[in-house]
């Protein structure tokens, strides 16, 4: 059976021509028309759009509409006051649930305001029977009274059951006019007309490399992609829209540092040291802020760990952490406004734009596949050796070392994923992830115990809630410790899985060849 098709009409001046062609082949009966002015909203990573939904605001009320449907959900007005909307600002109900599921920790941001005109027609067959339904959705965006408003149009063709031949005839006529059905809807088409995109941001590393590509060029491509992600997150991070901007920025910095470890004999020692230092500074200057974010994001989880009697102390502790977070953010913003910060990003960008970033060392010209295989193998074997030596009596720091090793291996696999045919790299990452989750949790729980201890220094001396806070912190620390021990107990089985034959096969397949 046919499904609704979407034709993007990039040049609205062609509408008359299209209409004439349709009228030449079908009797056309006009239907309803409507005009609404609405603002589209989504998270920075387009979570709603990617799930086929549009969140729009008309006047104060928000509506959710599914792609291909005209009907929207009943409107809801969010609480006002917060600088950036999140799901939590909406009244309880389906809309709030959908928003929470789409992006629990992301802000909901306005994308574009359009005036949307919708007109429908029925194409008629014998005896004036409707055989295809058409909807033309046109959008106009831009300032009021703009001399050159920006226009986009989508023609939606909905088949009528039992009239497939007529639907195919329509497709043929449109094809004759150079129109083919596509993926665009009125939102993506409106944004395209404005030179913007939607749904393209992802925090994943996605670089397409060729096995024969010189190593230096490949590394440069990876580093450039990572810098690109950093830049995309910079604005949201500095405006403090939500905590994910800083997080994604930091992950890109860490990945860049990891990529630099691949550049021996590609870049000069001096270059390597210089850029590692620069990137380390970016990491260091954001560590404190991220730690505090993690605490605040986990507030509900921590509250569930301690008994009711300790809740008031925990509340007071979190109030102090929130204040500290404000202070840390101001400090970070001062750094981000400094010459040092600007210089790091500008010089790093300038380097990656210069021919030097393709490498001048002896290994710069060697095929990247060799580099990838060699370095992935080294990390994999090292992870196996480190993990294999861990016993129930090993100190926490041994698990920490293994965690770092696994992280590097993971980054390498992600950088070089495109070099390996089939889905071996993807599957190897999946196997690794299960072990990493365990090690990550173990480490987080370990670090958090120390942090809670550290937060006690925030309590002003002689504060009336000092005693409550200290008790709550003590309770929390013992919960964190017992959870850390649970993770440790799970480690052996997770590692066994990772070091087993199934994972080994995957790595062997990837790493064999020369």
């Amino acid at each position, binding site marked *: 059976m046919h499904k609704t098709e979407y034709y993007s009409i990039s040049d609205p001046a062609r509408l008359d021509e299209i209409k004439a062609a349709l009228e030449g082949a079908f009797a056309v009966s006009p239907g309803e028309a409507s005009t609404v002015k609405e603002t589209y909203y989504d998270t920075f990573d387009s979570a709603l759009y990617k799930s086929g939904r549009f969140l729009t605001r008309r006047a104060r009320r928000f509506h959710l509409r599914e792609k291909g449907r005209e009907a929207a959900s009943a409107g809801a007005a969010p609480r006002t006051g917060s600088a950036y909307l999140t799901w939590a600002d909406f009244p309880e109900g389906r809309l709030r649930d959908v928003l929470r599921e789409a992006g629990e920790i992301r802000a909901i941001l306005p994308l574009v305001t359009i005036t949307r005109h919708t007109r429908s027609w029925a194409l008629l067959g014998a005896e004036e029977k*409707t055989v295809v339904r058409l909807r033309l959705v046109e959008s106009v965006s831009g300032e009021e009274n703009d001399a050159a408003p920006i226009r986009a149009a989508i023609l939606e063709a909905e088949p009528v059951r039992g009239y497939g031949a007529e639907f195919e005839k329509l497709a043929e006529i449109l094809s004759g006019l150079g129109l083919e059905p596509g993926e665009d809807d009125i939102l993506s088409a409106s944004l395209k007309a404005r030179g913007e995109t939607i749904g393209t941001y992802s925090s994943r590393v996605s670089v397409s490399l060729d096995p024969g590509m010189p190593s230096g060029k490949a590394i440069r491509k990876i580093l450039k992609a990572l810098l690109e992600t950093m830049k995309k997150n910079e604005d949201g991070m500095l405006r403090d829209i939500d905590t994910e901007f800083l997080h994604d920025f930091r992950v890109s910095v860490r990945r860049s540092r990891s990529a630099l470890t691949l550049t021996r004999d590609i870049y000069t020692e001096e270059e390597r040291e210089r850029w590692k230092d620069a990137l380390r500074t970016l990491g260091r200057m954001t560590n404190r802020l991220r730690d505090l974010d993690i605490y605040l994001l986990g507030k509900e989880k921590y509250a569930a760990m301690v008994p009711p009697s300790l809740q008031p102390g925990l509340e007071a502790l979190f109030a102090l952490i929130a204040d500290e977070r404000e202070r840390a953010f101001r400090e970070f913003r001062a750094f981000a406004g400094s010459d040092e910060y600007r210089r790091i990003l500008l010089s790093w960008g300038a380097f990656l734009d210069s021919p030097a970033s393709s490498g001048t060392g002896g290994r710069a010209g060697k095929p990247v596949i060799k580099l990838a295989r060699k370095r992935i193998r080294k990390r994999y074997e090292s992870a196996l050796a480190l993990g294999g030596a861990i016993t129930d009596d090993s100190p926490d720091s041994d698990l920490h070392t293994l965690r770092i090793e696994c992280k590097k291996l993971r980054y390498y696999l992600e950088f070089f994923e495109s070099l390996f045919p089939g889905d071996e790299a993807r599957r190897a990452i999946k196997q690794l992830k299960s072990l990493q989750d365990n090690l990550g949790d173990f480490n987080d729980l370990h670090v958090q115990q120390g942090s809670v201890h550290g937060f006690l220094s925030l309590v002003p001396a002689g504060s009336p809630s000092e005693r409550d806070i200290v008790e709550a912190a003590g309770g929390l620390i013992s919960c964190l410790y017992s959870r850390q021990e649970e993770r440790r107990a799970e480690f052996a089985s997770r590692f066994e899985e990772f070091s087993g034959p199934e994972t080994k096969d995957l790595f062997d397949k990837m790493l064999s060849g020369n």
Partner: protein
Amino acid sequence: MITIALYSMKGGVGKTAAAVNLAHLASSDGFRTLICDLDPQGASSWYFRIRAGKNFNSSKFIKGGRGIDENIKGTDYPGLDLLPSKLSFRNLDLALDDLKKSKTRLRKIFSEVSDEYDYLFLDCPPGISLVSENVLDAADIVLVPLVPTPLSVLTFEKLGSFMDKKEFDAAKVYPFFSMAERRKSLHVETMERLSSENRNVLASVIPYRSEIERMGVYREPITAHMPGSFSAKAYSALWAEVKDLAAGNVRKPHG
């Protein structure tokens, strides 16, 4: 899926008009609706300007499955599909008679589309036949249009005894007055008498109006063509009652 049959032993009582308008109102409410034209005269197909495919016939129909699936057609109204009838449906009785379980065949055929639709309306041919028996078996609600005259009431009472004899649940039969004329005292008296005797008589009355007769000219449900008209409002009131019945008073389908 809730199956609603429009059924009457007598012809020319406004059965098809009711089926077409009620189905249209159901789809306008957002329910996925199918109307099945069982009458070989094909009046509801005609109202929707739909012709059955060349290869469709009564034996394909009673086979069910793909033959039905391929012959359902979308109407001019979103959410409203129609399975058209063919002249060969005049032989539906004979075709059914050849089958095992000949009295429950329609129930089986329609169970195959029950996931696709919220409401199924059956527009039945007049008379008492094997087709009627199938319809009375398959329907969750049987709506019987009654022209308010003593003769119609007599025929309706015969339906009651027929259902008793065949052990159908008479509680699912709901008569409503059709083609009623308030200026005729005979109509008014008959309506009052039957309403007091039968608890299932619906309150909505479909009037005798030329605009309903003219549906055959403009070939649309009157609820779409003249939604503000007196007749369209009468159908809307009837639909509101039927929707209530469907929401609360429907017996669970077998199996």
